[in-house]
């Protein structure tokens, strides 16, 4: 097993594609937010590209025509939406102090919803889950930004190693007749449906989520009540993972 110290030393092996699948997944969850590792990965990749150039070998000449024909029939992916993700590589991990302060606020919110009446087991469970996520060394606090004039606020506390996230939203407008909010985990393969979200009458929402995979972004759309396998509505909230 990798210890937390080891993980910062995996950038070279990662750049060489010399990690096994499990370690690769762990490192990919770690490095975008790690100043040291993201820097190392960029530099090692540039180094390998420079070496690759020295051994450049032209492919057979007829490949070009076949390739051009194939791309003429190949659909391109949609661009990632601008905004938070552009800062993904540059973003620094929040300092312990900021994290602690934010955690305290989130805990207060969580506990307040527990204290103020809606005191079901769900609320207690949510507060515990939030507490658990925030206690993880790789806990991330993500603010999903409203991409249009939509009101409301959505925050997500997420730990890759705990495979768990806690989602807090307030001030959400009703999704509309026969519609529901749907949360998407967006990775290199595109968006995967995470969860249908049904805000309370006051527009608030507290949910714990099991998270597998390595999201690049989180997004929320409005979908038909039963949910969709792929997003059909506009992305109304979006945040870098």
């Amino acid at each position, binding site marked *: 097993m990798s210890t937390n110290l080891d993980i910062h*030393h*995996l*950038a*070279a*092996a990662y*750049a*060489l*594609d*010399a*990690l*096994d699948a499990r370690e690769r997944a762990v490192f990919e969850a770690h490095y975008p937010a790690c100043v040291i590792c993201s820097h190392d990965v*960029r*530099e*090692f*990749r*540039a*180094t*390998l*590209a*420079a*070496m*690759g*150039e*020295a*051994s*450049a*070998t*032209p*492919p*057979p000449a007829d*490949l*070009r025509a*076949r*390739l*051009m024909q*194939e*791309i*003429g029939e*190949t*659909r*391109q*992916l*949609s*661009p*990632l939406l601008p905004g938070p*993700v*552009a*800062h*993904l*590589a*540059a973003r620094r991990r929040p300092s312990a102090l900021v994290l602690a302060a934010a955690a305290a606020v989130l805990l207060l919110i969580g506990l307040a919803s527990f204290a103020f009446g809606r005191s079901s087991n769900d609320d207690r469970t949510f507060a515990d889950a939030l507490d658990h996520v925030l206690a993880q060394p790789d806990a991330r606090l993500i603010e999903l930004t409203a991409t249009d004039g939509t009101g409301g606020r959505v925050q997500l506390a997420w730990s890759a190693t705990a495979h768990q996230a806690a989602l807090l939203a307030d001030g959400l407008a009703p999704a509309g007749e026969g519609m529901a909010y749907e949360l998407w985990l967006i990775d290199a393969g595109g968006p995967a449906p995470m969860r249908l979200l049904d805000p309370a009458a006051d527009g608030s929402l507290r949910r714990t989520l099991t998270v597998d995979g390595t999201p690049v972004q989180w997004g929320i759309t409005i979908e038909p009540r039963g949910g969709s396998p792929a997003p059909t509505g506009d992305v109304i909230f979006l945040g870098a993972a």
Partner: protein
Amino acid sequence: MTKEMRAFRRLHSAATATSVAGSDSLARLLAAAGRGDQAAFGMLYDELAGLVHGIVLRVVRDPSQAEEVTQEVFVELWRLAPRYEESRGSVKSWTATLAHRRAIDRVRSEQASRNRMERDAAGRPGEVESVGDIVETSLDNARVRRALGSLTPSQREAVELAYFGGHTYREVAVLLQVPEGTVKSRIRDGMIRLRDELGASS
């Protein structure tokens, strides 16, 4: 396509491409390709085909399979072009990463992996084409040669078995019969030295 048409489309792409300010020409070509400009993509191919095929060929070895993988890499580059972010590294660096990843995916099936282990265990180091040899024979790139020469033999061996042999560091440890931690260190120290020698900036 006639020569004239191609020339015209190149001009057209170049004009389109220059309208994107502030990035290098490969980034401009990729941005144009990301908007569906096939002629720009063709120019990008002309710039990057040697880099991609060189990497793929060293990992995959079999020329006809390598050709397939090179084609796959460029189709992937086309599909992903709208998502390229400069924050993730230069176009060259990103492309080399895609190429190596694809080549590794091709050879890292279980059977293929077993065969490579047997081959590299039996024939090492003669069977494993040395990075040094590649550089000697294909291009007199003095900087790369000097950088490789600055590695210790064991660092160089570990880096080559991982990058060109397509082995994980655990497999390299088995091949060299040394502890995994030792291989990790050799790989890391070797890559740091290469980076420092090549002064590579992303």
